[in-house]
């Protein structure tokens, strides 16, 4: 595996990210959350502090796997009012860059553009996502996922009510 060329690595990672984006757009959240490792972290920093550290600063989201599963259960519930009825989303994932770390994990960054439509309105979330992916046999798992927004605030959306 160490001999894998960058284009081949990127191809593998892109395939994974595109599959992940489709699961999210299709609201197959139970399958999506199964992509994470048991020690995974999902994080969205505040718009005014993109480098924010959840151990020190105020962020929007900092989930371990337990709270991420609870987030998914919440989004699956009809009592998640901001997403009931569910919004329509379409994600575009691009500019994928992959680096292999010394312990054979993959450090990945990608640009995202997530359009969300609901209640007669639509607006994009624009940003980048940083991943740490771990190999699991032939497949990959998400150990760390940090979605950093480029917008200056959430004035278009009022909330982060979908997975970014």
């Amino acid at each position, binding site marked *: 595996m160490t001999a894998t060329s960058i284009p081949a690595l990127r191809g593998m990672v892109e395939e994974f990210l595109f599959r992940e984006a489709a699961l999210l757009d299709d609201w197959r959240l139970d399958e999506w959350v199964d992509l994470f490792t048991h020690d995974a972290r999902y994080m969205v920093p505040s718009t005014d502090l993109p480098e924010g550290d959840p151990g020190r600063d105020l962020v*929007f989201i900092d989930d371990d796997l337990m709270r991420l599963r609870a987030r998914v259960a919440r989004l699956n519930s009809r009592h998640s009012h901001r997403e009931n009825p569910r919004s329509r989303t379409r994600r575009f994932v691009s500019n994928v860059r992959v680096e292999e770390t010394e312990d054979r994990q993959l450090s990945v960054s990608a640009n995202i553009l997530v359009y969300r439509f609901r209640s007669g309105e639509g607006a994009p979330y624009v940003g980048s996502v940083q991943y740490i992916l771990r190999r699991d046999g032939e497949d990959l798992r998400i150990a760390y996922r940090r979605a950093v927004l480029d917008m200056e605030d959430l004035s278009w959306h009022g909330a982060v009510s979908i997975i970014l």
Partner: protein
Amino acid sequence: MKNAAEPMDIRDLVIDDRKRGVFRVHRSCMSSPDLFQRERELIFDRCWIYLGHESEVERPGDYRRRTVAGRPLFFVRGKDGQVRVFLNSCPHRGAMICRRDAGNAKILRCFYHAWSFNTEGELIGVPGRDAYGPNFDPAEFGLKEPVRVDSYRGFFFVSFNPDVEELSTYLAGARDYLDLVVDQTQEGVRVVPGSNKYAIKANWKLLAENSLDGYHLIPTHRTYVDYMAGLGTDDSGDTLAARPPGAGRALGNGHCVSENISRNGRPIARWHPVFGEEAKERIARARRRLVRKYGEERAFRMADTSRNLLIYPNLLIMDFVAISIRYIEPVAPDRMEVTAWHLVPREESGAALATRLDSYLTFLGPGGFATPDDVEALESCQTGFRATENEWSDISRGMLKSRPGTSDELQMRGFWRQWHANMLGEDTTNVQDGQPTESQAAAPDSEADGTGHRASAR
């Protein structure tokens, strides 16, 4: 019934029938551009409005930019250690002096014509000054301050009304609740870096109401309540409904509070399984400290009760799973901008701080398990108001009770009564439900509030 095109008399916008226990607000209060303009003049240009916390500018030269009551402002700590507030507009031609949200500067220079000012606001540099002739007086061109600036326990407020009463008088019964927030710490409070900024397509008053509204908790936030139940709290829907009612209070001058016996954890001194076993002894120690310092009763209020405090008109201090400062800036009748900060004890760091930061995120904030559903509720109301044939919103709950709880609505009526008085050009009014008795008239400044709360809540 009024024709929709014909504005109502201000006096008729609120129905407040204390005998029958009927309180209604006309929905044009949430949608009329005329009323929105009137609010700007009679409320936001006249009251004390929150600006920021002293801890946001710790070192000399630290500055923060804000929009407050529509005005661009910034505050900066001077070389002398004093915090000053300035209108963010160059006295020369108007450009914004401070063009970042936060930073540190020794000299504040306007980029347009390069006039420069020190952190005390004095004009110290004018390129080609000779051309202005001998009558040019730099003292005339210092940075301008809002007409009134004051702080209470580190919370800075401004007012554009030269005749406004002293801040500590204005805060009335809210002072005691701010004290409860600050005194639970050993070394005071600070705002952590990072803020949650979002906008809601709804009238600003709906968030003031919502932040005090205990009645919506179970239906709107069921997913949060279920999540907490799964973590080992007894805050399941049933016990929540059956729990002590807490107290809703009008504290005078429009300030209101909703105060509960906490079932969830309070990072200050009430342990909860969500904090983990390792936090148990630390939290027990903190509690013993509070009891030693303040006695059993006040320690109980700090550790075991939580409070959502509205400082009229547009500031909320939410002290429950963590302490949040929530500022509401109205931008249009049907739109508000919200900024939330996290207030923590200065002495906390490491694991204790991490626990608290984590606790905040579960409920609070636009990425939490509850706030998005509030945003949805408020926007849903605002859209619903377009059905103008439904003219009134009802806020009567618990109006005939002698001691309304948090799922009653005295704390919202207190807000609306002040709002209505202000809109009529009056500064003060009786914000309580009943006929004003002596004890109620004294309530806002009474130190006996806590005893009354415990009696009602147990």
